[in-house]
C-alpha cells in the first residue's frame, strides 16, 4: 500500500512477522470464549461440568434438544408406562430419566427478537433517512442543537429511561407488547440512524440533485430517484447497525417485557435444565443467537468504524 515509506519499525520483514504473530496470538486468545461457547453446545451436561474442562468429547445434540424442550424427571416405572419413545430426541431425553413435557419458550423468544429487531430497524431507518436528508439539504433552524439533542438521548442510562417508560407503557397498555418495544427501539436507534445517514447524504454531491431539478424533477422526485439510490449502501449498513443494537439490547427488554414480547437476551440467561444450570442448552441458545451477528460483523467490517462512532469517524 505505502511501499517505500518507512513508518516506525515497519521496514524489516522480521518486524512484520513479529507484529503479525502478536496480533494473531491476541486474536486466537480472544476467540477462546467464542469457540468454547460453540463447543459447549455440543457437549453432554456431564461433560460440560467435568474437571479438568474437556476439550475433546463426544458431540451430542442434547444441548439443542434441551434448548427447545421442557422436561420433567420421572421414575422409570412412569416412563415405562408411556410406551416407546416416538422420536430420536425423546429417546435422548429419556436416557436421563426424563420425559418431554412440552416445547420451551426459546423459539418464541427468538421470533420476538426477529420481529422487534426488524420492525424497529425498518422504522428507524425510514424515519432516519428522511430526517438525515432534511438536515443535510435544508436550512433547519437550530440545526446543530437539534442534532446534538438527538445524540444526547443516548447519554441516559437505559435503566433510568426505563422508569418513566415503564409508567408510560402501563398507562397506554404497551407493557410487554411488540409494538411498545418496536417504538422504544426505534427511538433509541434514531440517534444512530440520523447521524450515520446524514454522513452518507453529505457525501452525495448536491450537483446531482440540482441537475435533476433542472431536468424538471421536483425536490421529492430528485430525492427519490437520485439521492436514495446513491444511499443504498449507506442505508444497508445503517440498517444492520440498528438491527444489531435491537438484537443485543437487554436492559429495556428485561424491565419492560415479561412473556409475550420478551426477546432472547433476557431469556437466554435463565434457560435452566431440570435441577441444574444446563450449560450445553445455554451454549446452544447463545450460539444460535450470536451466529447472525458474527456473520453481519464480517460483512460489515469496512463500515464498522463509521457505525460505532455515530459517523464521527468515516475512514
Amino acid at each position, binding site marked *: 500500500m505505502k511501499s517505500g515509506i518507512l513508518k516506525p519499525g515497519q521496514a524489516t520483514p522480521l518486524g512484520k512477522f513479529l507484529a503479525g504473530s502478536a496480533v494473531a496470538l491476541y486474536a486466537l486468545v480472544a476467540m477462546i470464549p467464542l469457540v468454547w461457547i460453540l463447543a459447549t453446545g455440543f457437549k453432554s451436561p456431564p461433560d460440560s*461440568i467435568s474437571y479438568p474442562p474437556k476439550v475433546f468429547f463426544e458431540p451430542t*445434540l442434547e444441548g*439443542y*434438544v434441551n434448548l*427447545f*424442550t*421442557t*422436561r*420433567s*424427571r*420421572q*421414575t422409570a416405572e412412569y416412563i415405562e408406562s408411556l410406551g416407546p419413545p416416538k*422420536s*430420536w*430426541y425423546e429417546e435422548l431425553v429419556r436416557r*436421563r*430419566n426424563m*420425559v418431554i*413435557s*412440552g*416445547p*420451551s*419458550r426459546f*423459539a*418464541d423468544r427468538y421470533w420476538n427478537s426477529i420481529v422487534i429487531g426488524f420492525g424497529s430497524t425498518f422504522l428507524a431507518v425510514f424515519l432516519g433517512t428522511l430526517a438525515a436528508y432534511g438536515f443535510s439539504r435544508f436550512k433547519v433552524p437550530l440545526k446543530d442543537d437539534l442534532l446534538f439533542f438527538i445524540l444526547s438521548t443516548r447519554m441516559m442510562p437505559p435503566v433510568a429511561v426505563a422508569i418513566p417508560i*415503564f409508567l408510560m*407503557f*402501563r398507562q397506554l397498555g404497551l*407493557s*410487554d407488547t411488540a409494538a411498545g418495544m418496536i417504538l422504544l427501539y426505534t427511538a433509541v436507534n434514531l440517534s444512530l440512524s440520523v447521524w450515520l445517514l446524514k454522513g452518507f447524504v453529505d457525501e452525495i454531491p448536491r450537483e446531482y440533485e440540482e441537475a435533476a431539478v433542472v431536468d424538471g424533477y421536483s425536490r421529492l422526485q430528485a430525492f427519490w430517484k437520485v439521492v436514495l439510490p446513491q444511499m443504498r449502501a449507506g442505508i444497508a449498513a445503517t440498517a444492520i447497525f440498528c438491527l444489531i443494537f435491537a438484537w443485543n439490547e437487554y436492559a429495556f427488554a428485561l*424491565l*419492560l417485557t*415479561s*412473556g*409475550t414480547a420478551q426477546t432472547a437476551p433476557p431469556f437466554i440467561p*435463565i434457560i*435452566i435444565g*431440570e*435441577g*441444574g*444450570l444446563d450449560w450445553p442448552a445455554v451454549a446452544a441458545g447463545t450460539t444460535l443467537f450470536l451466529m447472525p451477528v458474527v456473520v453481519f460483523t464480517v460483512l460489515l467490517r469496512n463500515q464498522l468504524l463509521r457505525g460505532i462512532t455515530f459517523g464521527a469517524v468515516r475512514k
Partner: protein
Amino acid sequence: MRAKKIAAVAGGAVLAAMSGAHAQDKEITLCWAAWDPANALVELSKDFTSSTGIGMNFEFVPWTNFADRFLNELNSGGKLCDLMIGDSQWIGGGATYGHYVKLNDFFDQEGISMDDFLPATVYAYSTWPKGTPNYYALPAMGDALGWVYRKDWFSRPELQDAFKAEYGRDLGVPSNWNELKDVASFFQGREIDGETRYGAAIYTERGSEGITMGVTAALYPWGFKYENEQGSYDMEGAVNSAASVEGLEFYKSLYDCCSPPGHSDAYMVANLDAYKSGQVAMQMNWFAFFPGIAKDEVVGGDISGFFVNPGQNIEASTLGGQGISVVAYSDKQDLALEYIKWFAQPDVQAKWWALGGYSCHQAVLGDPGFAATAPFAADFLKAMSGVQDFWQEPIYAELLLAMQQRVHDYVVAGKGTAQEALDKLIEDWTISFEDDGKL
C-alpha cells in the same frame, strides 16, 4: 451428507417444538418458577386439559429471577399470567395492591373449604391480613427448607471410625447446628474415592432471596424474631438480639469453614449441582427438590438421605412454598378459577404428590400411610409444623433486598461484624416502614 441429515432432523425438532406452542383457542397461562415441581405440574395439568378442553400454557422463570420478573409483570398490570403461583411473601402485596382476586366467594360457591388444607399452609400462603379468613390463594405447594446428605458416605465404616475418633460421637444426622458444622468440617477437603469433597452447600445467593433464606434457617433456631411484639414493627432488640447475632456469626463461620470453593452466589440450583456432582456431603435445599433427588440417576435411591433443619435454641425451619392465585388483570378469570376448582380435588391432589408436587391437602397429608410414601415424607410433616416466614408485608421486596445486601456483605464479602449488619438492617427496615406509613 451426515451434516445435512442432522440439520434436517434439528430443523424438524424446531418445527415440532414451535407448532406445539399454538394449539387450543381456550387457553390459560400459569406462571410459576422454573423448577422440578413446575415440570411435575405440567405433567399433572395434562389431565385438566383432557377433562375440560382448556389448554394450558406455562411461563416458568428460574428462582433467581422469579420475584423480579413476575412482580414487575403484576405491577405493570400485565395480562401474561392468568394464574400465578406466587411466593408466600407476595400475598400482602397481592391483596393490598389488588393484583390477586379474592377467592372467598368462589370457595363458598364451589364448596372448597380451607379446613381441608394444612393450617400452617393456609395461614402462610392464602390469608391477608395474616390469619384472617380472607383468602387470596389456594395452598398449592407446601415447602420448607431441609437438608440432604450422602447416606452412602455417612455409613462407610472407615469414615465412621475417623469421625468418632475426632469428635467422640457417631457420624450421623446432626441434631443441632453445632453438630452440623462438625460433620461439615469433617468432610471439608476430605478425599473420598480419589476426589476432594467438601462439607456443606449452603445458600449464599445475592440477587434475589437466596442468602436470606439460608441465613434465616440458622437465625430462626437461634431464636431470631422480626419484632418484639407481632405487628408492632418494633425491631430493636429483636432483629439484633444477642441470639440473632450469634446465629448470623455461626452462618458465616459455616460458610468460611465448610462450603465448596466458589460457592459465593449459590441458591437452589447451585446447591443441587454441587451435591449431584459429588462435591459436598450435605446441602441445604427446599423439600421441593427431594423427590427429584430421590429419583436421580446418580444420587437417587439409597445414596441420599434427608433431614429436617436442625434446631439450636428452638426447633424451626424456613418456610418455602406457594399458593395459587387468580391474577386480577386476566381476561380469563373464569377459566383460571376452573383450574383452581379442578386442582383442589382430593384425587388430583393425590396425583400431584405422586408426581413430585407437595400437596397441602389434608386428604393426602393426613393419610396414615403418608409418611411411608417417600423417604422424606415424615420429615416434611415435621418441618411444616415449625415453619417461620420472612415479612409478608406489601413492601416485602424492599425489606428482602435490604437483608440480602446487609447479610451478603457480612457473610460472603466479610465486611463489618454481624452486630453491625443487623443494626444496619434495622435502619434500612425502619426507613422502609416509615416510607410505607407503618411507623
